[in-house]
Every structure is written in structure tokens, then in C-alpha cells.
């Protein structure tokens, strides 16, 4: 067993999930079964293989350039409302479970 109850509680905390007692024990079982299968990746020697994060790196990146200039294909002029108009205030708030006229409302953040 690689993943313990404690690991599941820790990861659930990172992911902002609570999980019931029953869900946690199911999660320990499922994650261990999936990770055991995933372990077969260790059969491969990848020490000299570069990681691939994006397919678009294949057709857009300018290999000659350095840093963010490599990704010039994905950038655009920084113009105010250059692509589309921003959502009007009231439209952006329409789907909020709780809002006043100007802001999303949430429970108190700062404890006294």
C-alpha cells in the first residue's frame, strides 16, 4: 500500500475536498489500485527524454529565441478590450450564489 489514510486526508485538504469516512476508505483503495498500474512507467528509462507539456509547442515555438520570446506565436498586442468587451458588471455577477450590486459575497474570511 503506497497511499495511506493519512495521505488521503492530506491530499483532500490540498484539493479543498472534505470527503466522508466512506469516501476516504474508497479513495485509499482506488488510488492504490490505480497507482500500482501507473508504476509500470518506471520500466522506462526517461533520463534523457525531454518532458512534453503541450502539443502546440510542436508548431508554434520559435526554437531560436530564448525565454518567453519562444512563445511569440501565442501573444498579441496588449490593447484594452482588444479581443472582446469585458463582461458588464451585472452580467458577471448573474451566476453568483450570493452577490450585492458590486461584489461577490462570501462568509467572513478574517477570524477575530
Amino acid at each position: 500500500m503506497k497511499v495511506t489514510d493519512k495521505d488521503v486526508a492530506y491530499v483532500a485538504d490540498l484539493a479543498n475536498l472534505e470527503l466522508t469516512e466512506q469516501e476516504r476508505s474508497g479513495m485509499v483503495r482506488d488510488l492504490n489500485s490505480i497507482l500500482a498500474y501507473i508504476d509500470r512507467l518506471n520500466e522506462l528509462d526517461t533520463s534523457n527524454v525531454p518532458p512534453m507539456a503541450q502539443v502546440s509547442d510542436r508548431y508554434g515555438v520559435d526554437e531560436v529565441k530564448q525565454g518567453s520570446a519562444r512563445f511569440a506565436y501565442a501573444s498579441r498586442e496588449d490593447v484594452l478590450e482588444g479581443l472582446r468587451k469585458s463582461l458588464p458588471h451585472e452580467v458577471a455577477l448573474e451566476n453568483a450564489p450570493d452577490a450585492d450590486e458590486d461584489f461577490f459575497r462570501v462568509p467572513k474570511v478574517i477570524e477575530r
Partner: protein
Amino acid sequence: MDLTSLTIDAARSAVQERKTTALALAEAHYARIQKEDGQIGAFLTLSKERALEQADRIDRMAAEGKPLPPLGGVPVGIKDVMSTRGLRTTAGSKILEKYIPPYDCTAVAKMEAAGAMVLGKMNCDEFAMGSSNENSAYHPVRNPRDLSRVPGGSSGGSAAAVAADMAVVTLGSDTGGSIRQPASFCGVVGLMPTYGRVSRYGLIAFASSLDHIGPLAKTVKDAAIVLRTIAGRDPMDSTSADVPVPDYVAELEKPVRGMKLGVAKEYFGEGLDDEVRQAVESAIDKLKQLGCEIVPVSLPHTPYAIPTYYLIATAEASANLARYDGVRYSHRARGVKTLSEMYRRSRDEGFGTEVKRRIMLGTYALSAGYYDAYYLKAQKVRTLLTRDFDDAFRQVDAIVTPTSPTAAFRLGEKSNDPLAMYLADIYTVTADLAGIPGISIPCGQTSEKLPIGLQILGKHFDESTILRVAHAYEQA
């Protein structure tokens, strides 16, 4: 004229030539949905007002004798992971049960600009996570060919609606096989374009480096027409490619004689159902008779595709789904006292088991101490899997495989074993990881009359070739 069994061109010409109207087409499809969808469950939301408004616009054009756009009067369905302005979009999840998007997904906007009538939103696995459509938070979809079986997933509603003549075409999304596998299970055509070919703007993100939008259709030509409509660079998606879009429909008629088709032994190994193997082998024979040359190729890293996929997809999903926090647009739990409690309880109530499982796996793979062993390792194997295809495509024009190792399985058969469910994607995930296009077309059926799918994979941005091979097979 049977209004619910038409192809795109037949429907459009019938409206253009005033043999019927867009309104009659829409009404006929809604009548069919009313009759059939109670037992199938392909639709989550109907958008009759929106469809009829479009019908009116198209009918007025036809009455004035104006040429109709390519999808003029064609009834379509949209997978419920694509945002539709003013029309509820749930992603199959309770957490977005009341979400009304303020803007349209680019692919949907292009479909409507081309004259399509959006009948409604299609059921799917929650956040497109699943291979059977049993993970929908609303209700499962049943396979129109056999109601005791799943339609595949995650675009199960999109595939079932086309198979049951409740829509002429639908849009689906494919992250690990979610267009091609349900197309195969339901006996329709499903096309996943090259990554970057179709804008993802407005597609609710599952795994951003793997998500693709594409059509499910009754014929290869219909899939080509839809791809021609939705393809192209979109400034709203920086990963959409600035690569010229050919006329896929004109390309269909080019000959396939002399074309080299690869067959990889890794796609015919253990776990492949005998009847599926036989059907795919006969399809390969037929392609040979059409003048294609069959060339053995090797894709040696194929056995590592599923573990690679389930690390990368879940890692990306854990980040993408962090936005559902109960603040801006998603479900919020009642009676919470602190912000932290609000996040946790809202997410606990809003997400289903499979979504939580994948968020957990992805968070684990990205967490301190495990990043190199899991996420980085998977990204490196992704390079190897992509190189396999690069090597193969130096020898062949396309690769033919089964779409899925089995025909449609029964509801409940795999729902308690996540790993068994993940293995249903074994022949489809690699194309998503490499970003190459793939199509599934029907190639016969099992002794139980269940459809079998043939998958054709192509080079980056070479949808024309796989469409041409698929069309030649379909017409032969």
C-alpha cells in the same frame, strides 16, 4: 420524406428547394426526441426557442431565394461542456446545475453562424470524465442499439442522439477517446481533429493540453462539413493553430489507391475481443482491395499510454476544477460559517465520485515529493508516445486500429472498478496525448448486433487523409 433520417446536404437542400422548411425539420426532431429520449436520456436541456428563432431566419432566407449557409436548417445537438449564451450549461455536474453562460463557445457560434439549429444540450459524463456516460450527475444515457448497454463516453448523449435520429449531427469533446469511443459503441462517425485545429474557447476545461472539440455524425461527409465549419485559428484560444484549413469536403473524393496504411501489432494484443478483431481485420482487407498498401508499423510505447494519460489528465483536471469554489458561478453549500468550510462543503456536495477521484489522483501526482515521480515522468513518456507516431508516420500516411477493445458493455458492468473503466480507452488515449487526429467509423457488428468501430489515425493537421480513407471505406 423522412425528416429525421437526412444528412446535412439533404436537409439543407430540402429547405433550400422549399421541399420542407427548417421549422418542419426542427419540429420533426423535437417530436422524435419527445418519443424516444425518455428511454435513451441523450438530452439534458432543450433549447426550442433558440432553435425556432434560427429556423425562422433560415426559412426567410429560403423564401427569398437566398443561398443557405452550409448548415442552413440542420438540427444539431451540443455536448453540455460547451458554453451557450443564455442556455444552461452543466458539464453533466450538479456543481453547475444552475449555470447560464454569458457567452458562446467559438465552435457553437460558428455552427450557428453557418445556419445550424441548436436543439439542445447533450448529456455526458460529469466534466467529460468517463467512458460510459454513467458518471452524469443527472441520468445515464442508454445505447439506442441496445438499451441495456452504455453508449460509451464521455460524449454518450452526442453519440446516442445521432444514432437514434434525434439530431443530424452533434458536437462532442475528446480528451482520451470521448468522441471516438461512443461513436464506435453507437455505430456512428466520430472525428477528433488535431489539437489546435478547433478553438477550445468556451469549452469547459477538463485537461487543457488534451481537450478537443469535434463532430459526431451519420456520415463521413457530414463530419467533414462540420469540421470545415468549426476549424481555424481563434484569437480567443492561444493554442488554436494558425494553419490553413483545407476544403475537407472537396478532399474526400481524392483517390486512396496507393496510400500507405499502417497496422500496429500493439493494437491487436491481449484484451481485444475476437469479434472486434475479425471485423477490423476484414475492414483492413477491404481497404487493401481499394488499393491501399498495408504496412506493419510499431508503436512500442503503447502499453504506457493509459498510465501516462491518467496522470496528465488528472493533474490538469485538479488545477482546472479548482475554480469551482462556490463564489462566482458554481453551487454553494448552505449554512456554512467560514470561507474554507464553504469551499469544501460546496465541492463535496457538487462533485460526483469519479470527479473527486480524479481531482485526488491529480493533486497527489502534483504534490510535493511526487511531482518528479509521477507528473514529470508522465510528461516524458508523453514525448516517447509522440515520437512513436512521428516514426510511424515517416513510413505511412495513416494508421488503422480498432477504436475500442470491445463493443458496448452493459450498464453497471464496470462502474465499480475505475481501472477497468480506464482500460476501455486503451486504443484512443495515445492520439490525444500526441495531438494527432483520429476518426471512428462503423465497420460491422457483433453476433449480438452491437456496432464495432474502425479507428483511423493521421498526421498532425492531416484530417484530410483520414477523412478520405474513412469516406472510401464507407462508400465501398
